[in-house]
């Protein structure tokens, strides 16, 4: 996290900030370490700077951005450092699964052994049944993520994976397969948020940030429609409204593909595809880098990686690179508006960030 933070600070030209926000989900469990804010401040040589950790399950990084953005928007801070970080590989696979389960109700899903993956598996089945689709129209999303991660320096799995390989990988929780869910990874990403005051003084390329959030019932099966992330729909509408842009103006999108089925439901819940149709659009190339709506342009959660608390910040960094023309071989053609969707649990929290090129 210190490494990523130093890079962000260098890029911004700032050596001091008013506040630090840290996004992290599983540190207390896997590293038995709380109090990350003060620790990072010390490790950055910024003792004295207010700092604390923000948590919203897998959306912790985006939640940290949200907290930082609010402080800027309130006028109380001119510059805020937001870092997301996670070290999942310190845990065995069953410990990482337990960590993920903490994003659900411990005394309900946790007690049943109905972990994050099995809840997704149930949604997967309900989805296939309602829309009459086969698993290839859901597994297309991890395939697409991998396609875009090819050769990406900061990706965990910078290579392509065929649909056949995905559909023949072993089940985690049937019908959800191993290659349909993000792996166990480590990583950190950081951004510097500034207010109007500093805008003219900072020379590096900037983008305008809008962010919105909403929650939903913890258990998808208690929602009015388990196959709709209401939280995401609301947050997307709010952020579009604030940024004064339409859905059609969004040039690229970072989707929370922690699992293949969450990717499909996310696109449909946020109005970028009709219910049941997202897979077909993906197959047609709509979400390719050169398509109508480029998706997960550096590999998303599946291929770039999903170190829980870092993910939400990675997404925004990647949008920022795209909108400032610094995306290298993954560059999308002249994007003006990018959206990042970060989900906590199975959509109980949705935090949506929108960046506009300036």
């Amino acid at each position, binding site marked *: 996290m210190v490494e990523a933070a130093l890079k962000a600070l260098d890029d911004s030209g700032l050596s001091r900030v008013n506040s630090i926000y840290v996004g992290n989900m599983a540190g207390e469990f896997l590293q038995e370490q709380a109090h990350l804010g003060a620790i990072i401040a010390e490790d950055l040589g910024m003792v004295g700077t207010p700092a604390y950790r923000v948590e919203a399950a897998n959306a912790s990084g985006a939640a940290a951005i949200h907290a930082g953005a609010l402080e800027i928007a309130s006028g109380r801070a001119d510059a805020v450092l937001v870092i997301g970080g996670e070290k999942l590989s310190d845990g065995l696979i*069953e410990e990482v699964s337990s960590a993920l389960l903490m994003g659900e109700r411990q005394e309900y899903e946790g*007690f049943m*052994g109905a972990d994050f*993956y099995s*809840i997704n*598996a149930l949604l997967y089945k309900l989805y296939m049944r309602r829309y009459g689709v086969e698993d290839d129209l859901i597994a297309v999303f991890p395939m697409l993520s991998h396609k875009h991660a090819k050769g990406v320096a900061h990706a965990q799995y910078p290579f392509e994976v065929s649909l056949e390989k995905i559909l023949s990988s072993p089940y985690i*929780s049937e019908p959800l397969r191993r290659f349909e869910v993000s792996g166990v990874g480590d990583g950190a990403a950081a951004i510097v948020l500034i207010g109007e005051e500093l805008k003219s003084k900072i020379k590096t390329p900037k983008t305008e940030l809008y962010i919105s959030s909403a929650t939903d019932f913890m258990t998808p*099966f208690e929602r009015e429609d388990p196959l709709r992330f209401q939280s995401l729909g609301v947050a997307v509408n709010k952020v579009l409204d604030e940024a004064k842009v339409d859905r059609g103006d969004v040039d690229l999108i970072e989707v929370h593909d922690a699992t293949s089925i969450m990717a499909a439901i996310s696109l449909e819940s946020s109005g970028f595809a009709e219910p049941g149709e997202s897979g077909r659009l993906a197959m047609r190339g709509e979400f390719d880098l050169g398509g109508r709506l480029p998706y997960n342009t550096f590999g998303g959660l599946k291929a770039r990686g999903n170190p829980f608390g870092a993910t939400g910040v990675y997404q925004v960094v990647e949008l920022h690179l795209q909108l400032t023309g610094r995306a290298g071989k993954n560059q999308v053609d002249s994007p003006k508006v990018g959206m990042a969707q970060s989900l906590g649990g199975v959509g109980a929290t949705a935090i949506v960030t929108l960046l506009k090129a300036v």
Partner: protein
Amino acid sequence: MRVSRHWRNKLFRYRLVGWRCVSCGAFHYSKPLVCKRCGSREFREVELPKTGKILAYTMVKIAPKDFKDKAPYLVGLVELDDGTKILGQLTDFTKEELKEGARVEAVLRKIREDGENGIIEYGFKFRPEIRRPPQARA
């Protein structure tokens, strides 16, 4: 140690007893102060029906820590006979019996142990309903 956590949830885990919002009927597995659906503050204790049907199920192959030695096991989304949707493990199913729509009934089973020396956490699971002959009502 999960002693107190398990103890304070045993009504629900042993007998599917919970709380329903008097206004909108939303079910809560532990006593709420505010209804999660409509915000109302009035509740009544209910014992959920013990029978229902499977809406969807999945077989967990890679399990979280506490369930590692129980895998593979089945998790089901069950619709009880009063419409309440509930998650629970499925048990005692043969391959032929395991299908969407299958009738189930709740039974008490071991869910997990709190380590080698800790307590045994019992709770409900669903098994195929055993048909009993229609009875003559007294």
